[in-house]
């Protein structure tokens, strides 16, 4: 039979098995609109205690951002990448985790680490410039703040995978910005996580800009949450300023991971109200009008409105929360105004488990220089 004759018979050839889709993409697709609770009818179902807790944490977080930014102006912090406007996502990321779980923050996510319970001064060690990581990551189950973009995501996957191999019921939540989703490590981490069905939650905070580059120049994807589908994991699109929605979606993703159903990618659509850091001039790349739109969608405002409308808080209650945040800020200010005691000999500590002969020589050199300095000072 010739090829033409075969065609005439119209019997479809059996396609090779590789042509069959491996999974149905439909359940993995994110909603068309970011998921919201506050301001909708669903908010009536929100647990009052959770609302109050989220409100207190978000107000706290706002004050923390303001205080840290002020500390950069006083030269007490080398730099501070603010999460003003993003507090709902930061706080929710911390609150959905159990003590045994791990948080993998990016350099911007100091607030998430603080909301998880880390001493704010320890959390600011990197940004203060006195050491890189100011805490024991194992003790707090918080990985070091990662400055290279997205490189902490495969760490989260590896840790979660290792925990599961050991039979431990541990989830890793890894945070990254919209710019970080363009990095190769983002792709590799999501792919590994999905293939290994690792108990990981990826939280992308889409705050509109990677320093100055807007999302439209960052990606052509329908949304960042859509990126999940290509890896075979669900993507969830959430209003990142809605603390209740963030908490629900992240808690679902954590539960899903813990139950052995693998990773989830959550995109929080939010906005960075401040510049990239105190060293950046945001007026060069965005308009006041745009900022004003987001100001009306402030995470504190959304919570406060809900609590007030439901009669869950009054003026005195709001004042109490703000006073509490003020006390935290005053304490932080006072502690950060003390000069840290640094030992230059620490430079040679923990480069290796044991110092190499070369480092021993160099440590002796620095010791001699310090001694000479001290003698010179006395003379």
């Amino acid at each position: 039979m010739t090829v033409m004759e075969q065609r005439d018979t119209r019997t479809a050839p059996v396609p090779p098995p590789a042509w069959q889709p491996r999974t149905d993409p439909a359940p993995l697709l994110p909603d068309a609109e970011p998921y919201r609770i506050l301001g909708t009818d669903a908010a009536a179902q929100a647990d009052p205690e959770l609302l109050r807790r989220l409100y207190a944490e978000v107000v706290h977080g706002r004050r923390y951002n303001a205080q840290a930014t002020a500390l950069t102006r006083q030269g007490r912090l080398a730099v501070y990448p603010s999460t003003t406007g993003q507090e709902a996502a930061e706080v929710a990321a911390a609150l959905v985790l159990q003590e045994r779980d791990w948080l993998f923050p990016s350099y911007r996510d100091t607030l998430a680490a603080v909301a998880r319970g880390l001493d704010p001064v320890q959390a600011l060690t990197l940004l203060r410039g006195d050491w890189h990581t100011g805490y024991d990551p194992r003790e707090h189950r918080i990985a070091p703040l990662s400055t290279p973009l997205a490189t902490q995501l495969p760490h989260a996957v590896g840790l979660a995978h290792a925990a599961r191999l050991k039979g431990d019921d541990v989830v890793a939540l890894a945070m990254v910005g919209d710019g970080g989703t363009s990095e190769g490590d983002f792709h590799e981490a999501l792919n590994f996580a999905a293939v290994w069905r690792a108990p990981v939650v990826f939280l992308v905070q889409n705050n509109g800009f990677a320093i100055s580059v807007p999302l439209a120049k960052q990606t052509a994807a329908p949304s960042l949450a859509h990126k999940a589908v290509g890896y075979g994991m669900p993507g969830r699109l959430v209003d990142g300023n809605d603390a209740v929605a963030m908490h629900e979606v992240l808690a679902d993703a954590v539960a899903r991971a813990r139950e052995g159903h693998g990773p989830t990618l959550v995109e929080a659509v939010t906005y960075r109200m401040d510049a990239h850091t105190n060293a950046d001039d945001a007026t060069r790349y965005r308009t006041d009008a745009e900022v004003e739109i987001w100001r009306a969608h402030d995470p504190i405002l959304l919570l406060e409105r809900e609590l007030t409308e439901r009669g869950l808080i009054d003026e005195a209650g709001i004042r109490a929360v703000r006073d509490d945040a003020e006390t935290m800020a005053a304490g932080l200010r006072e502690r950060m105004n003390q000069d840290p005691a640094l030992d230059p000999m620490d430079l040679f500590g923990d480069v290796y488990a044991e110092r190499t002969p070369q480092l021993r020589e160099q440590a002796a050199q620095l010791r001699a220089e310090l001694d000479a300095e001290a003698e010179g000072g006395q003379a």
Partner: protein
Amino acid sequence: MTTVAKPSAAGSVKPATMAQALGRALRDAMAEDPSVHVMGEDVGTLGGVFRITDGLAKEFGEDRCTDTPLAEAGILGTAVGMAMYGLRPVVEMQFDAFAYPAFEQLVSHVARMRNRTRGALPMPLTVRIPYGGGIGGVEHHSDSSEAYYMATPGLTVVTPATVADAYGLLRQSIASDDPVVFLEPKRLYWSKDTWNPERPTDVEPIGTAVVRRPGTGATLITYGPSLPVCLEAAEAAQAEGWDLEVIDLRSLVPFDDATVAASVRRTGRAVVVHESTGFGGPGGEIAARITERCFHHLQAPVLRVAGFDIPYPPPMLERHHLPGVDRVLDAVARLQWDQ
């Protein structure tokens, strides 16, 4: 190849290949310590493209010897997380130039995690990288990248040249609480050598260079794939009346200044031999260290015999690039013997 003398040890000495010794080192490490995990592209069912990991997945299961997705940054990046949780990953990079996508993980996280966390997060992981030329590999399969790794504080960089060291150094690397870049000279994988399988760990510790051939007239300082070249050159030099000492560095970081300097002070002459490029290569650092320590003992400048400063050439031309016996002897001849 030239048979390499081993430190004397009790028990029988048998022939074996470096590939066999490496495979057994992995197997023994995994058997002794359940936290040791082997991972990489093709390491499982296939047993690695060089068959170094052959049989490990079968014996220890796919959770302990894991075929990963093809992504070097992902392989090393996930290994970092596994090490954070108390495992001891042994990562295979398959070929030297394939390790470059993982370079950021290596330098930005692996190398400095202990330091940046003040010792709270050590990185007890080993990165196995088959390296160097001489096997007729096509582009990106023959690089010698040791200078990059040497320039990164926090990494230990070792490279065996003998079967005994292949086993012993790999076991030490896996047991180390620091990250080790373990460079496997792939052209020595299949050359037979003798070792003592009854006392396989009987080798000097990481950080120690070893005199493989004693001599009085000049010191050849080398490592990995160039050791057999130097030993052969030393034999040939005998005919010229040059008695050459040959040092196998074994460990590039930490560097054994003491053994190297002691030898050069005795011989007064030194040639550093390696495959990687001369400019910015390990030889420049080694020559500088020798000059700083031995200047008044030197009867000639410290010379380098290295690969040319070119991208690694195609296989049909690589013999012109790789330092061979003649090039080593030419350098030795330039050591001002008449003075």
